[in-house]
């Protein structure tokens, strides 16, 4: 191994180099640590002004209180009802569109691909009013289905871009060999390309899951009230209701963040692979 640049530094900068990362880590995690600490602090501590000291006891009952006194479980359930169909729908659709754009050569192929790329960048604000009107006129305003349907349509742009680039990178000889063998196109898709797409599907699913779970804008535009709103909107209204009950708000925000964060830690490899592929290509 050649001499690494870090070893040719002066001692002072070496120390600075080594300290910089821990400092940054602490700074980065401070907000989360603060919230986690506050969420297990009994309300008595908050009333007495013990904000940063050791909690007098670990009050995990804050989490129970949140569940008991609010519609949090409804909000959480709604989030799942929006997120899961969207992941399935958008990933499923984009497998097909990605396959079509990557494998077939036809005239408008490029133009179509650019439309998908461009659709990826259209700001959601410009869609807001018409989409709302559309959803109302389809009778799906304030339903989780309506929200999921829109998300599927909107995410398809990004997912197609992703899938097309992934399939394009696969060896085309596989498809050609299958064609020579007389395998039908549908069978090629199902038995040749699909099995190779598994890592892409995993990565994309994790990405779309977090995107949709964390969406707030469309939840505000297309739904209203605890019966249909997902957790992000729920958290916002919770925060408005309990302006001073920080231990409960903290517990609520941790609960809201838990599914995507868990997902992220369990599927970290896929998550990062997905982001890298989606951004660089």
């Amino acid at each position, binding site marked *: 191994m050649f001499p690494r640049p870090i070893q*040719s530094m002066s001692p002072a900068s070496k120390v600075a180099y080594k300290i910089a990362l821990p400092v940054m880590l602490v700074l980065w995690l401070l907000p989360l640590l603060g919230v986690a600490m506050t969420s297990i602090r009994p309300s008595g501590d908050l009333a007495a002004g013990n904000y940063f000291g050791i909690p007098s006891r670990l009050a995990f009952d804050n989490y129970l209180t949140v569940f008991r006194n609010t519609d949090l479980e409804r909000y959480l359930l709604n989030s799942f009802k929006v997120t899961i169909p969207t992941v399935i729908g958008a990933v499923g659709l984009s497998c097909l569109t990605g396959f079509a754009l990557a494998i077939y050569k036809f005239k408008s192929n490029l133009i*179509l691909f650019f439309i998908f790329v461009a659709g990826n960048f259209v700001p959601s604000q410009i869609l807001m009013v018409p989409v709302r009107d559309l959803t109302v006129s389809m009778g799906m305003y304030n339903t989780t289905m309506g929200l999921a349907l829109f998300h599927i349509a909107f995410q398809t742009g990004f997912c197609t871009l992703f899938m097309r680039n992934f399939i394009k990178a696969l060896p085309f000889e596989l498809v050609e060999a299958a064609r020579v063998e007389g395998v039908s196109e549908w069978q090629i898709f199902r038995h040749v390309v699909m099995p190779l797409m598994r890592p892409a599907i995993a990565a994309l699913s994790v990405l779309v899951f977090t995107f949709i779970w964390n969406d707030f804008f469309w939840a505000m535009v297309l739904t209203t009230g605890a019966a249909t709103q997902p957790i992000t909107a729920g958290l916002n209204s919770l925060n408005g209701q309990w302006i001073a009950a920080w231990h409960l708000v903290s517990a609520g*925000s941790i609960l809201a963040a838990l599914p995507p964060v868990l*997902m992220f830690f369990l599927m970290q490899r896929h998550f990062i692979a997905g*982001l890298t592929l989606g951004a660089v290509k």
Partner: protein
Amino acid sequence: MSPALQGLITIFIGVGGCLAYFYGSNIFLDKVLFPAKGIHAGRNINRANMVRPWLFLMPALLALGLYLAYPVVETFRLSLSERLPGGASQYVGFDNYRRMFAEDKFWEAMRNNLLWLLIVPAAATALGLLVAQLTDRIKWGSFAKSLIFMPMAISFVGAAVIFKLIYDARPADQNQIGILNALWLQFDGGFGSVLILRVLPALMFAGFAAVVGYAAYLVGRPIVKPAAHVVEGIALKLLRVVGAVLLSWVAVLSALNVIDSATLAMPYGEQQTWLTIPFWNNFFLMVVLIWIQTGFAMVILSAALRGIPEDTIEAAIIDGANPFQIFFKIKVPQIMNTIVVVWTTITIVVLKVFDIVFAMTNGQWETQVLANYMYDKLFRSNDWGVGSASAMIIMLLVTPILVWNVYNARKEMR
């Protein structure tokens, strides 16, 4: 019926429907419409192959058309019209835009959006690059990376709520629950305070001014001293002039801030309601987005750093380059493309920023941004015309990035 079961059935029907569509339509195409037998077998196979991609594309295209293409056109139409009572609308030309441009709140939103655009992508990319470099060759680097990346999994609203706790202020006679206020009250004007609150910000501003100034120099240099064998179009030259002027202006502004931050009177020992301090509260909101996006920048850039060929670095070391030179002159130029991609991706996020402002200040105390301004107009003042007009402005701002991205995708294809 329980909602979970209902959901499962909907999913089943949806997925089953899709599969049935693709399977059925492919069969129909091959067996019924253009069967590959008889005298026209060859012609039929060709025709079937021309139609097939559209079978795969059709559902997605329909969805995109309904939810994307139509709304864009419709919003443009709405921005040129006014809703009359009873649901009808009337064409009013550019009246909505005129009314919007006459509003102070709109210009405030524009100014704030510009601030966000200047600072958030730059800060997130720079910090991401820094962390990527710091974690590059450390044993626990990947662990540190996943911790820094974690905020990326938290929703903007969740992050906003978390940061509200940090910025919270209590009346003076109580203990402060907000971490920032608790820290702030530690400062008493002594040596430590001077070091952290005056010297450090002054240095940061000076550093920022230097970087921006250097960028202005790089952008502007070819105007004065054109490089040999490169001929630039008039449009590019104009762009260079505008860019150089803008960048130098930012550099001068931040240089002025060096003096400001060194001389500003500081209200030591008083708790601050951080989110209501005009102008500066924008920065407190930006911190939230930087906190989230740095992880993204770091992941992408660290993958790019890994991809740099070792021998270029080796050669630089043998030639006696110091670590800074290696970083700025060897590594950064090689990953410039990725940096630009990260930058533009974050820029788009910033242009659409809504959740954070909505949840933290709702545009009060001069923190309005375009997306929230538009939401305000539509849902609070019920002014559809002006709301749509401001949406068009956001679209207009995104368009250059969009075109640039499509252009790049095209270039890659060749």
